């Protein structure tokens, strides 16, 4: 039964693709939004009913799904984020290709749900790859722009590089335990456990855009706004973090696992924070902030409290989806995603309020839910060492800086309306409703601050949450406020930082350039070299064969030539010979014979002497010679 949750989306998508070509916007919104809502309800119901799902290929390869409180929370979040996003999409995007976009979004959501529900590594791998492929198709939605398709390709390849880690992890689990089920993973040990953990961390780091793989999120910005919203908030990027949370119990015994995850998360949170502070492109600013926030989640996992990461994922989903959609509306008015061009483009106060709520949550300001989870993360970091806690607080301050920048550029009084701009884009009610829903979720999540909420969640997720420490809470809040104020000041100035440094940060610390230099170029060059070498080798081989045959031909020619010449000469010689000796010979034989006969006849004549004793002597000699011939004939 549990298969029904991903299946309705995975099967609904191709149906929509084939039959939905002429559908009106409202039908698209109803169909896809409806499926997301059904998924939400099925997950809710399935959790109460204890649903399970199994599908066997053979004895070894069995696909299993499982619904635990953790996976249910993820599925609910995904469905609750996807529904407003797809409804927004139906009314926001251009009509051309809209059904395709919708069916891909639906498929994307279905694949992500399967990823979350998977209870074995094969299902996980299948869903993991499907999510990646969908992201390619979604990012290259506007395929007439070659640049966007290229960006989609890069995004896909970087994440697929990480997928190889997952492949290795899956294979090492299978080799060690003979099974792919999560349940059998506890048998893993020794070198293969290390390999399993390493592969999984690599895969998770690429998907969740951690250092050094973060820049692929910038490539992903080539896609339409709702794609970014879904990709960052609830699906693709969440996959990496999710799997570390899901398999935390298996991975935690690996001694290096927690320090590495913590280190990567902290580095990403700080580095991506600086990137977002320097970025001048609204979507890329948000993309960097996504990396940073997933970095926070990694800090929580590395600190030993995966439940904190789960909750941060939920609050982040609501606020990030809303912020992307707001950006989309404003950018449609401004005609650009450059922050300096977006000011005063959209002046409706409702939009500004939605943005403000989400931005305050992004910054992590009390009393919003995002602040609660972020402070919990600071506490977790404090459990490791105070230095880590301080670094996390600093990263939080960076969040406040870019959050302030973002909001002030879009809605602040600082931006000047640009002259010569056409009438502002009037977002419809159908676009506002999903936005309001997401903002409302963000506000409602403030309930996390209630003391009883934490206890309930601890019991439900069966995982501990750390208690706050006063000094960390106060210091962190001060830093957030200070960051926000600094952000406001920075936004007013034209250039407060060195532009070269700004470009360095904004370009993700030159990581894309490095990746290009260290990975892409060598592969490209070696492939070209190999291909050229092969051609030359083949040419050489052909050349050798050609040369040999050529030589043979020449030899042949010469030999034949010579032979012909020789035979010609021979004939000529023979002809000459004939002309002289032949003629002499053939003439001589008959005349010679005649002469011989003549001589013999005269000699025979001389025998006729008439003397009888001579006759007798001759007769005796003849008889003796006859007898001698007979005897010798016997002998031989």
């Amino acid at each position, binding site marked *: 039964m549990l298969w029904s949750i991903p299946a309705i989306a995975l099967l609904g998508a191709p149906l929509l693709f084939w039959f939905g070509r002429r559908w009106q916007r409202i039908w698209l919104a109803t169909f896809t939004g409806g499926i997301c809502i059904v998924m939400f309800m099925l997950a809710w119901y399935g959790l109460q009913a204890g649903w399970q799902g199994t599908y*066997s*290929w*053979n004895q*070894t*390869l069995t696909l299993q799904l499982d619904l635990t409180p953790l996976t249910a929370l993820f599925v609910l979040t995904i469905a609750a984020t996807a529904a407003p996003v797809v409804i927004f999409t139906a009314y926001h995007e251009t009509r051309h290709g809209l059904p395709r976009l919708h069916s891909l979004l639906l498929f994307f959501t279905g694949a992500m749900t399967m990823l979350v529900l998977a209870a074995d590594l*094969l299902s996980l*791998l*299948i*869903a993991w*790859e*499907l999510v990646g*492929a969908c992201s*390619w198709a979604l990012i*290259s939605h506007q*395929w*007439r*722009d*070659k640049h966007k*398709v*290229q960006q989609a*390709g890069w995004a*896909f*390849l970087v994440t*697929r*590089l990480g997928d*190889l880690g997952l*492949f*290795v992890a*899956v*294979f*090492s689990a*299978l*080799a060690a335990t*003979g099974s792919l089920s999560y349940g059998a993973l506890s048998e893993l040990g020794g070198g293969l456990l290390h390999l399993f953990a390493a592969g999984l961390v690599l895969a998770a780091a690429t998907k969740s855009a951690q250092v050094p793989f973060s820049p692929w999120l910038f490539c992903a910005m080539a896609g339409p706004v709702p794609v970014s919203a879904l990709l960052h908030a609830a699906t693709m990027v969440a996959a990496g973090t999710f799997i570390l949370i899901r398999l935390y119990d298996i991975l935690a015994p690996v001694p290096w696992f927690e320090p590495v995850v913590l280190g990567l998360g902290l580095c990403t949170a700080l580095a991506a924070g600086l990137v977002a502070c320097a970025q001048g492109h609204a979507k890329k600013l948000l993309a960097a902030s996504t990396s940073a926030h997933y970095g926070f989640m990694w800090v929580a996992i590395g600190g030993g409290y995966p439940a904190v990461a789960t909750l941060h994922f939920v609050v982040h989903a609501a606020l990030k989806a809303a912020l992307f959609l707001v950006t989309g509306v404003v950018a449609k008015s401004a005609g650009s995603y450059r922050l300096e061009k977006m000011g005063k483009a959209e002046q409706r106060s409702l939009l500004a309020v939605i943005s403000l709520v989400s931005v305050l949550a992004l910054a992590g300001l009390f009393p919003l839910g995002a602040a609660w989870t972020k402070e919990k993360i600071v506490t977790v970091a404090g459990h490791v060492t105070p230095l880590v806690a301080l670094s996390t607080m600093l990263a939080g301050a960076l969040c406040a800086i870019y959050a302030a920048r973002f909001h002030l550029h879009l809605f602040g009084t600082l931006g000047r309306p640009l002259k010569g701009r056409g009438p502002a884009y009037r977002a419809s009610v159908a676009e506002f409703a999903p936005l309001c829903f997401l903002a409302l979720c963000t506000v409602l999540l403030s309930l996390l601050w209630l003391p009883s909420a934490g206890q309930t969640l601890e019991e439900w997720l069966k995982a501990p949450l750390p208690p706050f420490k006063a000094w960390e809470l106060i210091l962190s809040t001060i830093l957030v406020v200070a960051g926000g104020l600094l952000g406001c000041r920075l936004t007013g100035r034209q250039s407060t930082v060195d532009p070269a440094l700004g470009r360095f940060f904004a370009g993700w610390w030159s990581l894309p350039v490095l990746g290009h230099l260290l990975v892409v170029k060598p*592969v*490209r060059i*070696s*492939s*070209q070299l*190999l*291909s*050229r070498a*092969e051609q030359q*080798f*083949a040419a050489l*081989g052909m050349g050798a064969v050609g040369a040999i045959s050529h030589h043979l031909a020449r030899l042949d020619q010469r030999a034949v030539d010579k032979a012909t010449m020789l035979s010609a000469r021979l004939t000529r010689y023979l002809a000459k010979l004939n002309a002289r000796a032949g003629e002499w010979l053939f003439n001589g034989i008959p005349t010679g014979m005649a002469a011989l006969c003549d001589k013999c006849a005269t000699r025979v004549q001389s025998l006729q002497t008439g003397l009888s004793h001579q006759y007798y002597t001759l007769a005796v000699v003849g008889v003796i010679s006859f007898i001698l011939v007979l005897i010798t004939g016997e002998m031989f």
Partner: protein
Amino acid sequence: MILTISLLVPLLAALLLAFPLHWPQRYYRGFATGIALVPCLLLVIAWVNFDTRGSLFQHVHEVPWVPSLGMAWRVGADGIALAVATMSSFLIAGAAFYPVDTYGRARQYYAWILFLQAVSLGVFLALDLLLFYVFFDLNLVAMYFLIARWGHGKARFAATKFFLFTLCGSLALLLGILGLYLSVEPRTFDMRILIEQQPLAGTGLLASLVFLGLMVGLIIKTPLAPLHTWLPQAHVDSPGPVSAILAGVLLKMGTYGMIRIPYSMMRQTFEQYALAIAVLALVSILYGALVALAQHNLKRRIAYTSINHMGYTVLGIAAAGALMSDSPMAQRLALTGATVEMVAHGLITGSLFFITGSFWQRTREYDLDAYGGLAAKAPVLAFAMVLAAFASFGLPGLAGFVAEFQIFAGTFAIYPWLASIGLLGILITAALFLQMLQKLFFGSLPQRWTEFTDLGRDERLVLAVLLLAVVVIGIYPNVLLGPIEASVTLLVGRP
């Protein structure tokens, strides 16, 4: 009996077409397709009736032929042979139906296609080594004429190169076969007896030499780097459907032969050299992928991915034949994966080559850089190619993934390092296919292709059937796995 009929029907039809018939040109295509579908139907019946708990070879049919030599008309199939044969007959039926320019010589073209179907099925279904060899070589003849007479570019040259190169391989194979034949008492070409007796086990140098002969012959056919140079040229210059058969059917004869002869009949020697074969396969995987990435010719690029994919298959076979007693599960996985890869590669690369045939029919242009933005003019073509390309680099839900997952999962338990390095092939193929799709279909449309037409009805039909099979195998591989696994279990379990 059912297998003999499925072999004889296309053969007799080909003979019929050899006579000057003077039918209207368009009749030949329908006739050939109809005939080619008969073996498909019969093989599906054989597939359904395959007893997964029965003996290794089923549907056996034997007629004495040259008893003094130990040769007979012996046909029969295990799950592996049946899977590959069924895929091949469907692919060739598709090739017969796929519209192509026959330059006014339709009768001869379809006669060769039907002949090719008969002798290809003969290779997969023969249970007699000599019969196997005869069919193996007759393929070359049919392919030579198809490339040389209906190809384009330097077709003669390509056909001759293909013929001579693979004939060299065949001769090596023949020596190996004779070596096997001479080592068994009483002399026989019966595969079942040879598999049972393992005649050359423990004979050292002689076994190695025979093994070398067999493997050289089969590797050239497969082909693995560095004995692959006949392949790209033959692909580029042959018509689309013939390319599809070349990639989908002929290449499988190499890997199928590896499973059938060296793997089954000389298990001990195979164990000895399994690592070397695996390394060779790994080289092919990476080399094929890297060289394909640098190609600007559409067909050449796909041709090189064949080398990469056949590398996966051989890697699986090598892992299945490695000396490892404690992990029969992994070996079964690897060999099953290799078989599924043969079927999947046939369907996927076959589809890709059919599509290149459609490109050639429309534009006479293979240069990738000349294209762009075709998704606007030919959405169905674009969709088919995107699906086939994604299947080719192993996207889950499609047949290639089922194959590659099993191959790598099995190989990893036996040669972890080789499998890990080989995984890079998956990444590079993804890169090269994405780049190819981007160059063909996305971006802006060049002026010269504004008249480009989408796939016609017949083309759509063939591709729909093939790609549907790819999707079904990807989602529900059980249709394929039952008989294959039954045979694989028997083969791997052999001492």
